[in-house]
């Protein structure tokens, strides 16, 4: 399952442990991770459990605008990378 592979990679890259950060900020980073999982489709990875995970969405709604900005940045970042190194 592509989705589960994605999650494994995703968790590897996202360890929240910068101890200088503020506590609330750390909490909101974790909330962003939940949004990334629920809405992984927006990053091009379909979430086969979407129907079940959607029940969590209301509780992360307040983060959604910030999260959308962040993935937009990430897209820019990815396309810049592709521009520098060319398509494989």
């Amino acid at each position: 399952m592509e989705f589960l592979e994605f999650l494994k990679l995703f968790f590897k890259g996202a360890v929240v442990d910068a101890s200088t950060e503020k506590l609330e900020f750390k909490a909101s980073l974790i909330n962003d991770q939940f949004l990334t999982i629920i809405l992984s489709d927006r990053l091009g990875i379909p979430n086969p459990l979407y129907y079940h995970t959607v029940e969590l969405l209301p509780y992360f709604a307040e983060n959604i605008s910030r999260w959308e900005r962040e993935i937009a940045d990430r897209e820019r970042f990815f396309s810049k990378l592709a521009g520098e190194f060319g398509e494989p």
Partner: protein
Amino acid sequence: MEIYRYRFFFFSGKGGAGKTTFSTLLALKLSEKFKTLVVSLDPAHSLSYILGKKIGEKPTKVTENLYALEVDIEGEMKNYLRKVKEEAKKVVSPLLLSEIEEQIELAYYSPGAFELAMIDVLFKVKESLSKEFKKVVFDTAPSGYTLRLVALPELLINWLDRLLSMRREALRYQRLSQLKEKKSLEEILSEDPVYRALTRRKKQYSSLRELLTGKDTLFGVVFNPQVLPIEVGKKTVEELESLGIPVKLLIANRFSDPSPLNSLFPDKAVIQVPPQEEEPVGIEKLKCLLHVIP
């Protein structure tokens, strides 16, 4: 074949092979000794037809000890998503609400939604009705999607554990950041809707695996020479077993002679249902076939 030692029954097989017919026949047999429920989760319900009686969305009495139920999965999906939307109305700020509502509506059409709803129903029936009914026969062929989910439970359970610990972390940070009087973290977790939903899903996925592969479950495959050659049916058996679902019974439906099945599967129990001149529909005709089940 000792059918009475099992509590839950599932049958796989091609459309038209005789799954509903055999499920109903078996339920009728079980009901001679135990209060039994036969549940259809098939969107094209045919229990009403096979039983010759209108079956509702609540357990409908068919004979003294036999009840039947046809679940409207699409209705269940609408219900569930309506509840998620109601929750969103309570907790989401008005500015964001319409975007979130749209996201929730999309779930109805998302890949796998129907199968996941089916899992919800299986779980619900098991939780709410298996106390009242000693035997439950599910008239549904779990789809490949559902079966793969069952084959992956460790991954899924690990994943849910991971989400649970992430949620615990987030709530711990939030708690630490508050200056006023604090509840204990355990108290916060027990009231947290996200933590609770994740815990429920974890329980549900483990229960699904137990339901499909456990020792209380009889999983059978229906063969029918008019619908497909037995070599093709053999593949179904092999696939199920490779996913960790032991096939304990084979139904030789519409076989005049079941010996080819016996020799193909020398170690499995086979029940033969001979071809009937008239469709075996209605309780009276089904009763005439009860003797085929030992």
